């Protein structure tokens, strides 16, 4: 319900607006993000996002380095899901250099990407509840499940968050023995946790009160402002790059794309819950269909594992995009034949999803602005790259 700022009663008061800075150190801004807020009473009148506190010119670093050397830097873009960042970058360079990815490597990639999606979505819901004021309980439940998945990543790639596991043409090393069973057991327990999580949250009346009809985003504005991922789907547009581009081997799995109806904070929350259930379906099928043996990196790209500096893709450009949990993560790479890319650009979904932050928050209360920011799900490593 949009509250008008000027009610008949307050028309003749010459009230002043209160201009406050929310951030860069603020409990609810998910990192160093500043909002220059102008409030009339508690209602947001103007909101200018200010970014760049975490800007380290990731693109210039990548242009001064060989292709493989900037793979560990992509982990630090959206540090909640390093695997899908690697996936995007690897796809773009494979398109550029024309490298095929063997069967088993593709299955490993899809399994890890879907596990990252689950990790990201439960963390987002946990942080959203934190902004709403539920004192850390949903967040600690979410982080308890996240721990289990991060331990799997540590076993596979060696590091929990900065995995640096994908290579052009496949993955760095094969899965350790017995890991697929451990993923299977983790996946069997996860739905029970999700039901418990939904019982705690979905019908919680205070949550519905605080999230429904708050930050409503229309379909046209969402599309025109270039939004992608759960934000776009919550507004009613079922556009999922896994279904559209069918990149890697997503074409083989049948899964559905949940679509919201009203496009408010509640829909963005619940679309993520449904997406987690869909990811479980994909994981289930992938675990059944994965070939038990087979090389994990394409013969053509294998020598570059040992000597990354000899990897010189042909002159040309490529734009690879991936459905990262935040939205459409695109990598635009231009090669001039040398081992270092001529131009390397990251299309950061968190940054572009912020375009509509002001439109969503105006007219709402300060408390809602925090919740809306929480529902957009930004990570400052990616926003400021």
């Amino acid at each position, binding site marked *: 319900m949009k509250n008008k700022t000027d009610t008949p009663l307050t028309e003749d008061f010459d009230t002043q607006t209160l201009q406050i800075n929310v951030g860069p150190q603020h409990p609810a801004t998910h990192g160093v993000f500043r909002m220059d807020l102008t409030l009339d009473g508690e209602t947001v009148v103007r909101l200018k996002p200010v970014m760049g506190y975490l800007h380290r010119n990731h693109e210039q670093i990548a242009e001064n380095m060989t292709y493989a050397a900037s793979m*560990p830097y992509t982990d630090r873009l959206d540090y909640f899901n390093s695997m899908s960042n690697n996936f995007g970058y690897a796809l773009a360079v494979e398109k550029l250099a024309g490298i095929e990815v063997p069967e088993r490597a593709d299955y490993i990639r899809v399994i890890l990407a879907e596990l990252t999606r689950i990790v990201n979505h439960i963390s987002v819901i946990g942080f959203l509840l934190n902004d709403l004021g539920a004192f850390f309980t949903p967040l600690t439940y979410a982080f308890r499940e996240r721990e289990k998945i991060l331990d799997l990543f*540590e076993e596979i790639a*060696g590091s929990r968050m*900065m995995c640096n596991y994908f290579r052009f043409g496949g993955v760095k*090393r094969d899965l350790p023995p017995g890991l697929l069973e451990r993923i299977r057991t983790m996946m069997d327990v996860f739905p029970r946790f999700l039901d418990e999580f939904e*019982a705690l949250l979905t019908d*919680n009346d205070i949550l*519905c009160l605080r999230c429904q009809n708050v930050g409503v985003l229309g379909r046209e504005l969402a599309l025109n402002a270039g939004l992608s991922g759960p934000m776009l789907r919550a507004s009613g547009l079922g556009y999922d790059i896994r279904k559209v581009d069918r990149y890697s081997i997503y074409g083989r799995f049948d899964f559905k794309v949940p679509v919201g109806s009203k496009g408010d904070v509640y829909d963005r929350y619940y679309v993520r819950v449904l997406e987690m259930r869909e990811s479980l379906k994909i994981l289930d099928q992938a675990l059944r269909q994965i070939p038990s043996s087979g090389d994990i990196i394409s013969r053509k790209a294998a020598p570059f594992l040992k000597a990354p500096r000899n990897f010189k893709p042909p002159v040309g450009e490529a734009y690879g995009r991936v459905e990262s949990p935040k939205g459409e993560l695109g990598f635009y790479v231009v090669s001039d034949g040398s081992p270092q890319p001529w131009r390397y650009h990251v299309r950061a979904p968190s940054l572009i999803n912020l375009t509509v932050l002001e439109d969503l928050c105006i007219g709402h209360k300060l408390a809602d602005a925090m919740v809306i920011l929480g529902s957009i799900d930004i990570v400052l490593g990616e926003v400021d790259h």
Partner: protein
Amino acid sequence: MIFGAGILKGMLVTLRSFVNSYFKKPDQGGLFTVEYPEKRLVAKERFRNFPFLVYDEKPEDPRCVACDICAKECPPKCITIVRDADAEGRPLKKPALFDIDLSVCMNCGICEEACPFDAIFMDHEFEIAGTERHQSLLYHKEDLLKSNGYFRQIRPSDAALIDARRKEAEDKKKAALKPAAPPEKKE
């Protein structure tokens, strides 16, 4: 549904987890906190922290031949190597100086992949602290050298693979040299 029903359902969930934390085992919803200094999680085999240099018998001659590949491949450029030279100034296949600046290193593991001589690997030891930011985190060759035994202990299956490969290469080299003049042992 009246106003309070959803809230009550949520309350039951927290109450159940309150009760479970006393009675259930860690993976059935009980407490799974590991109280760090007393009890520790065992590191996974592929866990990678800062790199270390491996030597076979004596720390004086590590496997590293100062070929500088890892220094070139390292994304944040935190490795500096100076090749050793003998009395007459002829370069030797040993590093005189091998520094890794741990404050710059982001333990990505690319040096381990790029090293053709299995000389540098990622360590498991993570409790590292320095008194000040610059000097104490710049590790020199002496601080980095660890025995192959240590490597076998922290990463058994990888070490076994690599040792097998090295021994087989060793035998092939010995077999290739045998018909010619008896080899004068050069290491």
